[in-house]
């Protein structure tokens, strides 16, 4: 079978063997859940509960706080202990609802759309997805209902289900593709209906042959004959939106635009599963699979955990030798964020907790020798070494002219750099300063 790929990219060791074969285990609900009101891109949710209220599993506790925002639900049943700033995976203190578990595990009951979804209006389905608080679970956490409501002048003809899982260590998507294959495919059909997309591609990297076989097996049923399996070469960042669109469709997302400008929309397999659960079971997004893995983890696991469970509790469950740990990362090692506070909770976009005993150089170890490896691996075909020099000299005009804003921050250049220069850090800093300057200019003008 033809294998699809994109230009550029790197080949870090997969490091997935340990957890890829471990079935998902249910992790018990925590005694106290801290559920941040901001787990998504956009405005934070506005709390709709107050201290002392009793809440049920799946009950709305925060409503969308703006046009780009998402609803937040309780993951346990119990009493709201407080609402205020708590440690957040981002490293900042962010408003959250702290709920004390009453051990009842009493769930809110909603009426699901259920099997009549294929007769439901797209608008009703989108509303259900918005009500379930679903966001992109691959990492970016963009509200899904917005991605599923493209403006009418930007028709979407291609839906891509992203099962690439190209980040090393992560196996949460891999496991759900094996264990909940059919639900993901139904989720894909629901999205196909909403978008009235012609083509649906299911992309999986070739390092997951069992997941490919599981999906292939289900696709033989006529129910799913509109979905095409696309096997992708294992290469990072194969699961990046632009990479996977170009790999499968050969289309390119125009610079500075969204995938819908190429007629495409990409959704992660976890998101597809969440959509299935929202539509078929009326279950809001309040739990997800988290891979707990790393060099200091004695019993690595794939855990189905409630949103708001402290990282510390999950690490304890996996017998982590915390004393030897140097770094704890939420997400993958290529794009995840380093965690400072183990009391921070897992959120909707937390795909993994990695415990590493190695650190990367804080400052460059060698000078740039112009070797061009960063140029070779950049999937956007930027010249990272040159951009870094512009940012270093606060030359933002040239940085913009050399397309710093197109950087997808995948980290390939930094991974490969033989001089060990933190290139991506320069780009994040540069973009931040450029955006701040633009905002200031807008305000002044």
């Amino acid at each position, binding site marked *: 079978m033809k294998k699809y790929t994109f230009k550029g990219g790197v080949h*870090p060791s997969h490091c997935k063997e340990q957890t890829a074969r471990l079935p998902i285990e249910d992790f018990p609900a925590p005694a106290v859940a801290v559920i941040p009101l901001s787990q998504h891109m956009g405005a934070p949710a506005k709390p709709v509960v107050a201290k002392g209220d009793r809440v049920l599993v799946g009950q709305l506790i925060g409503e969308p706080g703006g046009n780009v925002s998402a609803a937040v639900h309780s993951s346990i049943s119990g009493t709201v202990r407080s609402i205020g700033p708590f440690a957040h995976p981002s*490293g900042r203190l962010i408003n959250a609802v702290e709920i004390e578990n009453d051990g009842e595990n009493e769930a809110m009951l909603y009426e699901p759309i259920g099997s009549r979804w294929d007769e439901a209006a797209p608008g009703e389905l989108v509303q259900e997805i918005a009500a379930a608080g679903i966001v992109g679970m691959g990492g970016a956490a963009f509200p899904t209902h917005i991605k599923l409501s493209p403006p009418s002048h930007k028709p979407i003809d291609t839906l891509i289900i992203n099962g690439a899982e190209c980040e090393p260590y992560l196996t949460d998507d891999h496991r759900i593709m094996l264990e909940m294959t059919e639900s993901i495919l139904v989720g894909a059909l629901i999205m196909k209906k909403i978008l009235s997309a012609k083509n649906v591609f299911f992309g999986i990297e070739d390092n997951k042959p069992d997941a490919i076989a599981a999906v292939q097996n289900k696709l033989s049923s006529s129910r799913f004959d509109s979905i095409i399996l696309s096997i992708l070469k294992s290469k990072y960042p194969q699961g990046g939106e632009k990479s996977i669109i170009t790999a499968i469709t050969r289309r*390119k*997302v125009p*610079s500075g*635009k969204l995938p819908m400008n190429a007629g495409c929309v990409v959704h992660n397999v976890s998101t597809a599963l969440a959509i299935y659960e929202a539509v078929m079971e009326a279950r809001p997004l309040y739990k997800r699979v988290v891979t707990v893995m790393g060099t200091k983890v004695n019993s690595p696991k794939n855990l189905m955990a409630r949103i708001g469970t402290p990282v510390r509790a999950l*690490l*304890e*469950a996996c*017998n*982590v030798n*915390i*004393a030897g*740990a*140097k*770094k*704890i*990362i939420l997400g993958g*090692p*290529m*794009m*995840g964020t*380093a965690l*400072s*506070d*183990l009391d921070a909770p897992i959120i909707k976009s937390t795909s993994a907790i*990695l415990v*590493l005993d*190695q*650190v*990367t150089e804080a400052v460059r170890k*060698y*000078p*740039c*020798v*112009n*070797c*061009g490896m960063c*140029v*070779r691996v950049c*999937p*956007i*075909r*930027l*010249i990272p*070494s*040159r951009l870094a020099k512009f940012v270093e000299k606060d030359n933002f005009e040239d940085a913009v002219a*050399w397309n710093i804003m*197109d950087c997808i*921050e995948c*980290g390939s250049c*930094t*991974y490969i*750099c*033989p*001089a*060990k220069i*933190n290139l*991506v850090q320069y780009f*994040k800093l540069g973009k931040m300063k450029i955006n701040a300057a633009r905002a200031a200019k807008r305000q002044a003008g």
Partner: protein
Amino acid sequence: MDEQKLETPHLHLSNAPHIRAQFSVPLMMKAVLLALLPAVIASGVFFGTGALLLIAVCVVSAVGAEYLANIIMRRRQTIGDYSAVLTGVLVALNVPPSMPLWMGALGSVFAIIVAKMVFGGLGCNFINPALAGRVFLIASYPAPMTSFPATKFGSINGLDAQSLTSSLHDWSILPPDAANSASISAAVDAITSATPLEAIKSTFVLDSYAANILEFQKALTDLFFGNVGGCLGETSALALLVGGIFLMATRIIDFRVPLFYILTVFALFWATNGTGTYFTAESIITPTFHVLAGGLFLGAFFMATDPVTSPITPNGRIIFGVGCGLLTFVIRKYGGYPEGVSFAIVLMNLVVPLIDRCTRPAIYGAR
């Protein structure tokens, strides 16, 4: 489950990515040194232990110069990146085996101090330090830099001396009494010989190339294996090719620079091959001779590919290779020197920033 409460350790915070590839700048330098090993061995085989001593002296003086420069300039010590070792080896490979040791050392010190350290060290130099050292030596000591002893196996330039004596007599390379090959062999240790490139250039100058073409054809084997006079690193095309292929296969150097460099030299000498024909076996003798002779392989695989002084863009590297080839051709064919590789590369080094600016790749999704 272990019920003990986990103490929060001192955790490192940093930006993603949190993993890095093993490859590093010192590893890159070591890989190039490894790739040069066949050429170093070949120079020992063909020119004896004196050649190896010269290499050792150049390495020690290059590393010593960088060490002292860092101390004097109050900079972090950088000799651990192995780039000075590489520069030392390359300077040595760029001088004749008869070069006095102190001149080799001086060339290495010039390469490190003037071409590299005063510009800020590794990554900041705008011309290849080793070539700067070579060019400095050619300008300062033209005679020792252009007198080449024969190899240990007695070959002067891979050419049958008797057949070519008339041409070479006229070119005043050989003493007038060297009328037969026996007397040439006898004089081999004493005289300095014409390199293959000098010989072919002189036959072109004297219009006697066509008459001697078969001699040049016979010389190709010696050129390929290295039984010819010349600089230390020019001797064996095979040894350089082995190292070059290793570097290209491991993607430490980009194949574009050597490929387009060598192809350009071949094509231009083929177009002016001196036989008046283009699709005969004879027509490729001159271009093949020029590709194998002199420092082309050393330059194309190990000097033009120096990342610091070559373009970073893929298309820029093609232009750079073609430009090096064009200049090498012009100097070898029309210039005053028989060899043009080092001048060609140094000249192209100077236009690298311009090439990079003009060959910016179209980004993904460019409109």
